[in-house]
């Protein structure tokens, strides 16, 4: 297998698994907290709405959530930069490890201690949003901006353009085919992850976060074995 093929395969694996993880977290977040954890565009719209209405409390909360998504991506890039020269494996592993730890904390707290107070809800949503920023930042960094898995607006836009190009052009380039496969895989696994996340949440409640953490641990294992 050539290096570019190996790279493509890694991107597809990384995109598929992290998209499934993001979808599970997003759906579980909506079901338990009534708040999206990966839909940042929606939060920006909400921020504007709450601001216009003069709802300062809600505006502050949404702003903090948005900021934490930003900080998640910021932290991911910082960790990658910190380790990439001396410990390249750790540069990929550290953001995922941090995400796994936070997801486990959310899962354990939600499972054993959550009393459904507003403060707890806001804090747990904040943790999940930070995780999604972390994951999206890490995936975007190590795939050189090819993969982003926590939101689908850009992805479906790209997919639409790529499908059109693939149908209209006589010669489909390798790059186009590669992007098409990657984006279709991410979309597929996001949908599957969302469905499974909702189903497992109804069955196992907060323990669904253990499942997401396990999935990400598998990503770590795969990354380690493919070095």
């Amino acid at each position, binding site marked *: 297998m050539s290096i570019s093929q190996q790279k493509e395969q890694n991107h597809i694996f990384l995109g598929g698994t992290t998209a499934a993880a993001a979808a599970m977290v997003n759906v579980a977040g909506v079901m338990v907290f*009534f708040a999206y954890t990966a839909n940042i565009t929606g939060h920006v719209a909400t921020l504007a709405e709450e601001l216009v209405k003069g709802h300062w409390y809600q505006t502050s909360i949404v702003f903090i959530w948005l900021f934490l998504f930003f900080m998640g991506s*910021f932290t991911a890039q910082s960790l990658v930069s910190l380790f990439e020269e001396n410990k390249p494996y750790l540069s990929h592993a550290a953001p995922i490890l941090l995400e796994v730890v936070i997801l486990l904390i959310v899962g354990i707290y939600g499972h054993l201690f959550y009393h*459904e107070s507003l403060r707890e809800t806001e804090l747990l949503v904040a943790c999940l949003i930070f995780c999604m920023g972390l994951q999206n930042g890490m995936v975007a960094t190590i795939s050189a901006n090819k993969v982003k898995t926590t939101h689908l607006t850009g992805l479906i836009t790209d997919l639409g353009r790529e499908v059109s190009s693939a149908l209209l052009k006589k010669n489909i380039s390798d790059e186009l085919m590669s992007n098409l496969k990657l984006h279709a895989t991410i979309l597929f696994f996001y949908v599957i992850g969302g469905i499974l996340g909702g189903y497992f949440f109804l069955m196992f409640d907060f323990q669904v976060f253990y499942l997401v953490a396990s999935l990400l641990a598998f990503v770590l294992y795969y990354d380690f074995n493919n070095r």
Partner: protein
Amino acid sequence: MNWIRTRRYTLFILLGLLCLFLLAVQTVVRLNPEQIITGQWKETGWTYENIDTRNFVYHDIKLTRKHEAESWRITSDGRLYFYNGQDIAAEATWKIKGRAHVLQITYEDGSTELYNIKELTNDYMVLNFDIGIESRGIARLVFHKLKNS
């Protein structure tokens, strides 16, 4: 570790953390919606908005318990009492979810109702009953807080 020594980078982190801290403090210092909502609320309005036929929406929501009550007493221990005059018509528990925009009411039989909190101040509260995004209308409940509550 050269990258972390750059002044621009450190300043950026500090400013970010400071903003987050100030916002968090500001939010915590403000009255919590869970505290604002506690008290005795008198239902003063029950209106339908954006609908073509009243019966269509009314059909969806007529079974809800709120019709039994003239006032609600919301306590800090998570209990909600629906009053008809002086009598308690029903009891439930309440939670606020999301960004303090969802009021979840769970009745003793386990059934749940969701309300969208449109306004919540120390004097009045406006709730939209969640009847599904497909329905072409909303039921709006307006409450005023009783002064002695």
